[in-house]
């Protein structure tokens, strides 16, 4: 049997290296549900989500079983709810509850799309949406929210950036009994992608079709193991091995994604190959950097190592599938990565180093606990920095910071489960408020004028 070696290698990846399909996300368009009567529209949203996704979980589990690859999460993303055009918190909450209830009814742990796209400007309706987000996050359990604040084509909506700090602080306050967990369900984006299957930032973009299946594959453990034993190898030799490994992981994901979409009778959208860590041992992106030769993630050289990793992952993915999309690269969520937590506790990984690393990773400042008394303007300023990195470099960036109520730098917060635990990181204490108060719009960069 010629595939003897391949079979054992695959089984080793599955059993020892945590290879899995991280998420099968069903994107559902809600465009035809919206109308002037928000009570009726929110009922239509519930009906549409539950009817489209009623077989999602079972189908994904069946396919996973047959191929012997676990599909860890089954999720749903919907059209950004801000398109519903409501105008009060009470009306927005109707939609939040409808989505949350629908997710629970079909057995999905997270539904994304309580979102708005305000990168160029904000309508009055969207302003009321931003005010409603903290209440929606506090009241629901399975709902995730995101707001796109900038794009390379449009620049950065600096007015909206200014609103983010107070909004995040308010969410932290409303969910203070739960270590401000509400903030872990919100992402502030620049250059958000419309087909990302990973939470908390997934939404079904307005350019998408009715229903679609997007798949997110991961496997930092597999890449780490492939690099172990390459002592003395050059950087390009390592890149080659990462590429080959990414190829294999992507192929597995594509097979599973196509099968799920075929059985559900729904078109297959994209495959997002992102090395996404989990709190499980050996499922760490930071550990890959350590195997490459850094004492700890965050040491000088971390940005270079991460850049090479992200790029090689993308190249392997593109070779393996014509449907690679989403964010594809490497995620660096601090609280979800054991070795990143360790690096933060050692003082090796700082907020500023993380910001530098986000210029080459696939998203941004992710799952970072900061002191509860961090001023709202400072949070807005962090988002402005991150959005600028995205807009100037033509990449997606995001901020998911959690100002944990009542905690100071050095304390440790534990959210449990997938979201892990994290040391509260020190932030720069100097004031940014006069800059943030200016509002307006940061113009699009010169390279946006490609036409």
């Amino acid at each position, binding site marked *: 049997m010629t595939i003897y070696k391949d079979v*054992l*290698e*695959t*089984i080793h990846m599955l059993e020892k290296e945590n290879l899995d399909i991280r998420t099968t996300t069903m994107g559902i368009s809600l465009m035809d549900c919206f109308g002037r009567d928000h009570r009726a529209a929110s009922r239509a949203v519930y009906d549409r989500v539950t009817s489209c996704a009623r077989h999602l979980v079972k189908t994904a589990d069946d396919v996973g079983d047959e*191929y*012997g690859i676990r599909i860890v999460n089954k999720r749903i993303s919907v059209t950004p709810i801000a398109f519903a055009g409501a105008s009060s918190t009470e009306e927005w909450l109707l939609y939040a509850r409808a989505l949350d209830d629908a997710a629970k009814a079909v057995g999905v742990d997270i539904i994304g799309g309580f979102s708005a796209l305000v990168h160029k400007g904000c309508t009055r309706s969207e302003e009321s949406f931003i005010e409603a987000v903290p209440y929606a996050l506090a009241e629901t359990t399975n709902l995730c929210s995101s707001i796109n604040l900038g794009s390379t084509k449009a620049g950065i909506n600096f007015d909206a950036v200014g609103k983010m700090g107070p909004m995040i602080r308010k969410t932290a306050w409303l969910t203070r009994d739960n270590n401000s967990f509400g903030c872990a369900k919100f992402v502030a984006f620049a250059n958000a992608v419309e087909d990302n299957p990973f939470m908390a930032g997934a939404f079904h973009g307005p350019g998408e079709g009715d229903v679609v299946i997007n798949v997110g594959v991961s496997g930092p453990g597999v890449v780490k193991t492939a690099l172990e034993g390459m002592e003395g190898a050059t950087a390009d030799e390592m890149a080659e091995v990462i590429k080959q490994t990414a190829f*294999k992981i992507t192929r597995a994901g594509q*097979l599973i994604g196509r099968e799920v979409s075929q059985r559900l009778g729904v078109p297959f959208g994209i495959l997002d190959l992102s090395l996404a860590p989990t709190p499980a041992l050996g499922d760490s992106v930071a550990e890959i950097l350590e195997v490459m030769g850094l004492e700890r993630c965050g040491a000088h050289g971390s940005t270079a190592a991460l850049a090479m990793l992200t790029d090689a992952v993308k190249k392997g993915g593109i070779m393996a599938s014509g449907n690679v999309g989403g964010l594809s690269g490497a995620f660096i969520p601090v609280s979800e990565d054991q070795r990143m937590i360790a690096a933060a506790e050692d003082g090796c990984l700082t907020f500023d180093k993380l910001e530098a690393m986000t210029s080459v990773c696939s998203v941004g400042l992710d799952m970072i606990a900061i002191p509860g008394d961090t001023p709202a303007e400072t949070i807005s300023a962090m988002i402005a920095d991150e959005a600028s990195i995205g807009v100037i470099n033509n990449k997606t960036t995001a901020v998911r910071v959690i100002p944990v109520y009542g905690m100071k730098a050095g304390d440790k917060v534990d959210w449990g489960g997938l979201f892990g635990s994290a040391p509260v990181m020190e932030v720069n204490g100097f004031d940014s408020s006069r800059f943030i108060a200016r509002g307006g719009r940061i113009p699009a960069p010169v390279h946006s004028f490609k036409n």
Partner: protein
Amino acid sequence: MKAIITVIGKDKVGIMHAVSGVLKDLSVNIEDVTQTIMQEYFTMLMLVRIDEEKTGFRQLQDALDDLAKEMNLSIRIQKEEIFDVMHKI
């Protein structure tokens, strides 16, 4: 439908007999088989063809799960394509 069965466990008498017995009972044909002992561990790979009209994938999986428990082995069954797509360009 073609599938690959992987059996791994501490070596003892009768593993191959027991596994092929389950397959015979469910009309599953063995097309190829390879077996070795690695560090005292019995490792066997089987390429089988399942006649879907006679036997459901889940039914076979359950029968192998029962055998795995009974004989204290790890038995996996996976559709063949997964190995093809991952390892061939």
